[in-house]
């Protein structure tokens, strides 16, 4: 009995002590306050200055500019992570081949050293990797991983460590609404996607032929809820009516009830953000039930060749907002396609371009900041005005969302074609969709 009392006493002391320590422990490192930029850069320099500065550099230049990324190379987001990694690496290769980034403080071009870690699609491990990059490599900027739940875990770490963070592969707007100052994302976000959906339809299809009766299949995820709500909010403004709004949990197997209700409501267009298994199941069941919407925007699910392999002709006519595509006509895309083809034996996937652009944004910010000070780089990133990048011109809003082009692509005869904007299109929007049973 005495032993029990001793154990209980020890346990109680440990419990109380740990709670007290947690509440009272001082911060080990007080974060330095962000300095305002001494001078806001007005224009993005594209070339390193040819003239040497009059003053001698104050300190020796580092061997390399340290940039780090924690990417899901394995695990459930592995297929996205490898695309992002390819984009980052190809961009760094290109920049380093030209000698690196010119840093005024040292009056020389310094190559970028990119450290990439695999976080196994585990947000906890991603946090750990970011801490490592901060303390071991002392990176001046983070490049993000892939997928919104990974970004949700890592962006606060960038904010805490006051390291500028450039991330792609997430359209979730909510992450940008937390007041983060160090987050930048040159990737189309939900509000842009919601408005562009109707703008593109109105611009591409003559009045009278438009699919004005819309069904929304909203996935019960943060992005699904966000984009579903924004579609609903914007529809009437552009002359569309939401005749059916359904919700479903990810990885549902049976969509037939929803499809039947959408069909009964006379819906002519379907908008959704399904994951790939759900998207494939949805289209198969629509085909079985015999409902072919004239227009389908299924963001995310049809982004890779597995879509066409699984569905064949049933997968045609479906449109996507991928953020970028290698058939776009920006300068430099052809070169990137060539390099990617050489390195990986296929054209670049949709995330390669935005990831490449992220490195361009960081390099441009470092050059304009003229220093490797993180706060100065952050301020320069906020003032980004890149006239051209792998994904076109880039600016940022105050919340860190990119003002970037949001292209629409469509599956046509087993191939992805760019159908919007007109100056980049590789094919016209195929509309209305041929009924499933006639393909």
């Amino acid at each position: 009995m005495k032993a029990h009392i001793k154990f209980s006493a020890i346990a109680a002391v440990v419990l109380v002590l740990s709670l007290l320590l947690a509440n009272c422990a001082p911060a080990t490192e007080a974060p330095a306050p962000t300095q305002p930029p001494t001078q806001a850069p007005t224009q993005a320099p594209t070339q390193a200055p040819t003239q040497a500065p009059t003053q001698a550099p104050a300190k020796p230049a580092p061997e390399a500019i340290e940039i780090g990324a924690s990417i899901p190379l394995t695990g459930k987001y592995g297929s996205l992570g490898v695309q992002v990694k390819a984009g980052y690496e190809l961009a760094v290769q290109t920049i380093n081949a030209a000698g690196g980034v010119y840093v005024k403080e040292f009056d020389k071009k310094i190559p970028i050293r990119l450290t990439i870690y695999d976080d196994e699609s585990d947000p906890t491990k991603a946090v750990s990797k970011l801490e490592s990059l901060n303390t071991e490599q002392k990176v001046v900027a983070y490049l993000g991983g892939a997928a919104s739940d990974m970004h949700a875990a890592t962006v606060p770490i960038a904010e805490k460590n006051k390291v500028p963070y450039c991330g792609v592969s997430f359209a979730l707007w909510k992450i940008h609404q937390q007041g983060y100052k160090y987050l930048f994302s040159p990737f189309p976000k939900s509000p842009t996607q919601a408005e562009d959906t109707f703008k593109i339809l109105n611009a591409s299809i003559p009045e009278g032929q438009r699919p004005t009766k819309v069904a929304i299949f909203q996935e019960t995820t943060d992005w699904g809820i966000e984009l579903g709500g924004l579609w609903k909010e914007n529809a009437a403004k552009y002359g569309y009516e939401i005749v059916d709004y359904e919700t479903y949990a990810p990885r549902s197997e049976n969509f037939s009830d929803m499809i039947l209700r959408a069909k009964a409501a006379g819906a002519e267009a379907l908008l959704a953000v399904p994951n790939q298994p759900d998207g494939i199941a949805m289209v198969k069941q629509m085909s079985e039930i015999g409902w072919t919407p004239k227009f389908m925007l299924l963001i995310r699910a049809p982004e890779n060749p597995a879509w066409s392999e699984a569905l064949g002709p049933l997968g045609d006519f479906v449109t996507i907002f991928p953020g970028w595509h290698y058939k776009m006509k920006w300068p430099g895309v052809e070169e990137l396609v060539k390099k990617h083809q050489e390195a990986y034996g296929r054209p670049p996937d949709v995330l390669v371009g935005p990831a490449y652009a992220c490195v361009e944004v960081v390099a441009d910010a470092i050059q304009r900041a003229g220093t490797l000070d993180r706060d100065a780089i952050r301020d320069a990133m906020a003032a980004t005005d890149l006239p051209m990048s792998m994904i076109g011109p880039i600016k940022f809003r105050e919340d860190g969302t990119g003002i970037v082009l949001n292209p629409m692509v469509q599956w046509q005869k087993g191939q992805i074609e760019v159908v919007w904007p007109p100056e980049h299109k590789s094919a016209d929007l195929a509309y209305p969709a041929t009924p499933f049973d006639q393909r």
Partner: protein
Amino acid sequence: MSRRDIAFIISTLIAAAALAVVPTITTKESVINLLVLVYIYVMMASSWNIIGGIAGQVNLGHAAFFGLGSLVSRILWTKGWPLSISLILGALVPVAFALLIGAPSFKLRGVYFAIGTLAMAQILFITTRNLFPMISSLPTEALSTYSLAPRYYMALGMTLLTVLVVFWLSRSRWGLGMVAVREETSAAESLGVSALQHKLLALCLSALFAGLAGGVFAYYSAGYYLFFPFFPTWTFDAVMATYIGGTGTVIGPIIGAVFYVLVKEILALRFVELHPFIFGTLFILVVLFLPGGMIQIWSRLRRLLVRKSTLAPSAAKEEQVPETNMVHDRPAVE
């Protein structure tokens, strides 16, 4: 308490005191961060060990307790409740859930119990994902004052508490009862040991400490989806760490968790592309050559030393150490 027990407690407290100094001697947040992860895994492995190792019920729904603890603690804490109350309630809710599901679950045995608990955890995971699809992020004001040090001390303290309670349990009448139920349920019941009571107690204690680990995770994380701690990987990681270290022992899950987190991290940092392959190979080697877990290394070394010593064969026999699955190195009923 025997002299050995006192030695264990003192050495554990000394180790904890040494670890408590870490934040004062390093400013490397990566080190502190990694140690917090180690502590969370030690808590998860040790708590799983109570039901899976000591009581012998292979629970594959451990993530549900961790997730519930994290969910309750995070919601209460971010809504302005005191941290200590949020953590305590975060630990108690999984216990209530364990009591609720315990009685029907223990009607299932062996593999059916494992499948039943896995299904229960998956149901909870899907429900939470549907009910709480949004991110839980700390506001920027909180992030500007975020410090790892209090999280570190919290995690260290809770880990110490978990280890001490598991140690106490292994030396107690209740712990012995759990081992008896694990080894031969019918025989134990024929001697008046209530299998249901012992299993329920094991499940509740396991849920309590997994819930506490969830609370620590909620306090430590700057931003995450509330359903993330319900992912089955939390269960499998705890099970793997326990098996790597040695089930049914006090030290095994600690060794396993430390090995699991540190080796994986080192490999991931050094071998970006190959680390899953290397760790997988290491895991297979441990399972093949140390089926009782890494704790066997110690007993094998001792046996080797005994063999090599000049002791008489009879003495060597006396020195032999049991290898696997023992809670006690000697029976201890107090």
